């Protein structure tokens, strides 16, 4: 087998991504066709910047889905070490490739002779699985605490703001080192934090439904049961892990694999205070509006006003911040990987692979650059998307 040229490598990479291209084209065609009926999402397609950002983000989302769920895009096993492929340059043929196996390492081999291209592709699944979900949790925490702080003010606000500032004054990396080291994990501290932090979505949805249907007990009960029972089951199996400090719940459906829970908790913990501050500020602004006064005169309860009057009207800035925050969470995950914290060392996530590749950077460029550029493009896409959304939501 001959090594292949840069042109051939490039073409072959484009071919490997075929399912992603098809999915992107279908998504864009449908969205542009029906953009007038799709609200804010449809308006996104009026802004070039927003469209570019959305395309970059969806590229990685589709890549994560096709590579992680259907095992499509990658060419090799991300953990397989093929002898003779250590640090080989892009386009090197795989020694002893059997029938039906892919014949080349498209972007070369890393220092453990694994395929760089496959690892970069699979790295997206780690990020796409953790970052948006962690951001959702951070928003739940921030909204549940920020609304009352801004609405009631006074002592509650002072206390919560003080606590938020406390976390914000902590250098993030120091916090990570303190939370994610094996000794601390052994004490069960991150798990106890998970117990508290993951409770917020339950509280949020419970209060959301109850404040709406308070006067109709039968509907209230049905809604609460439909939403809360699965959430409670999910919550219990999330925090419960056999063999750790918290292990008493019989209905444990799944265990979160090694280190992911710790990483998840610390990322949520770091992001929540900022969301809290944003929500608090927005609430303080919106609570002076006439429709809030009208609701108060009508005799609505405070939580109804917060969740059904103030929150929907704060959605514009919150959606924009949500996009930016996923990007920031991606950067944080990369930072954790870069310092070798939390995630297992063989994990294909971008931070870990950048960290591995950088040590040989003066001699071999190819192991570190692909994950670095991948991370850059995803975060850039999210920032552009946020910019496009901001522009379009300001227009009306």
């Amino acid at each position, binding site marked *: 087998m001959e090594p292949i040229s840069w042109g051939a490598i490039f073409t072959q990479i484009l071919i490997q991504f075929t399912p992603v291209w098809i999915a992107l084209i279908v998504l864009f065609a449908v969205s542009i066709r029906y953009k007038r009926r799709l609200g804010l999402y449809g308006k996104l397609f009026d802004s070039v910047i927003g469209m570019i950002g959305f395309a970059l983000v969806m590229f990685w989302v589709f890549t994560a889905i096709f590579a992680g769920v259907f095992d499509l895009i990658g060419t090799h096993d991300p953990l397989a070490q093929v002898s003779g492929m250590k640090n080989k340059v892009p386009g090197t043929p795989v020694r002893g490739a059997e029938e039906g196996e892919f014949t080349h390492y498209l972007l070369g081999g890393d220092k453990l002779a694994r395929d760089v291209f496959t690892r970069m592709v699979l790295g997206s699944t780690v990020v796409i699985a953790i970052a948006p979900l962690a951001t959702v949790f951070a928003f739940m925490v921030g909204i549940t605490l920020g609304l009352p702080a801004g609405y009631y003010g006074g002592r509650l606000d002072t206390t919560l703001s003080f606590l938020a500032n406390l976390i914000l004054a902590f250098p993030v990396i120091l916090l990570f080192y303190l939370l994610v080291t094996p000794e601390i994990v052994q004490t069960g501290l991150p798990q106890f934090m998970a117990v508290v932090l993951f409770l917020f979505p339950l509280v949020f949805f419970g209060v959301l439904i109850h404040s709406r249907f308070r006067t109709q007990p039968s509907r209230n009960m049905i809604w609460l049961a439909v939403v809360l029972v699965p959430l409670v089951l999910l919550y219990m199996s999330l925090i419960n892990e056999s063999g750790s400090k918290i292990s008493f719940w019989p209905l444990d459906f799944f265990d979160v694999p090694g280190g992911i829970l710790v990483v998840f908790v610390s990322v949520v913990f770091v992001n929540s205070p900022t969301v809290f501050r944003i929500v608090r500020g927005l609430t303080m602004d919106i609570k002076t509006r006439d429709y809030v006064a009208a609701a108060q005169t009508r005799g609505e309860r405070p939580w109804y006003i917060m969740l059904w009057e103030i929150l929907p009207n704060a959605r514009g800035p919150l959606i924009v911040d949500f996009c930016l925050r996923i990007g920031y969470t991606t950067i944080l995950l990369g930072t954790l990987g870069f310092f070798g914290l939390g995630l297992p060392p063989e994990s294909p996530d971008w931070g870990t692979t950048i960290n591995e590749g950088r040590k040989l*950077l003066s001699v071999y460029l190819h192991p570190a650059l692909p994950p670095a550029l991948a991370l850059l493009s995803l975060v850039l896409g999210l920032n552009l998307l946020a910019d496009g959304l901001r522009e379009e939501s300001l227009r009306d």
Partner: protein
Amino acid sequence: MGLFILRRVGVMILTALCLTYIVFFLTNLYPNLEKLAKTQGNFRMTDEAVASWLTDRGYMQSMPKKYAEWIGVAPSFRHVDEDGKITGRCILPGQDPAEAPQYCGILQGHWGWSTVFKDKVGDIIGQRLSLTGILMFWVMVVMVPSALIVGVLAGMREGSVLDRSLSTVSITSTATPEYVSGVIFIALLASSKSPLTNWLRENGWIEGKTVFKGSATSAMENPTFENFTLPVITIALYGMGYIARMTRASMAEVMVAQYIRTARLKGVSFYNIVVKHALRNALIAPFTVIMLQFPWLLNGVVIVETLFNYKGFGWTLVQAASNNDIELLLGVSVVSVIVVLVTQLISDIGYVYLNPRISVT
């Protein structure tokens, strides 16, 4: 104003106490202490041996008591062994226990002993902090002016081609964390295998093997253009985009103000409007943002110092944290928490001073 500053300082001290207590608590959890005992004593210690090693050194006291001792508001722990020999944190080897001070904590300037560097924590931090100070100085010199220029140029004509392209540049720079831009810079400019470097060398434009150096270790004694450029621009780039965008937003807001329109109608030239009328008002918001960037810069410093092997404050943090060097880690945390809180205070006070519309009373 005096009362405002006093109250802010009070809150700041309370925050500092809470944060240092959290760090103290987390670093003094039993598994950490056990690891400390095993690395300092020996690795095959039994559980009882570990417990007695820790008891003799006062590690088994209650957390608040240990914290008070460490701060220096409680008399420090002393241990009397079977021979009647007294040992304790305050008593240096060979010193007479009667002469040693009763209190020795942060307040007395006794920061402890680093187990990794085998040196006094206070000395290590002072040394490393001055190295990082040099780095931060150059980062500020590069970052602040370029961010302000980009922001003002983009914001003075909102929506123009110049604005669009500069805004894209600043969005890209905020989307590039230090460990990505650093790796890209090293790959392009500091690696002998880089196609860009090879091309420059073939044309005879550079003399050495590479344009810049990928390691800043030599910059600790002698910072030069060659070994210090990459770390500085790597940190500056990430912060720059954010400040530039703030400046742009603030500038764009000022440019549509009534008094700018009046100036324009009076016939003032565009240059004078921007420089004399708009700039001062537009720079209030970026000032606070620049001050609040310090905590983020600290992050960047840790990443860049690790990446470029520049043995400053951030590098020390990583070493202390990954080697379970409890007293050094505590010292590093105290310093970084104080840096963050003081910059927040300066930013608050500066904001009030710069903006006459805000009254503190």
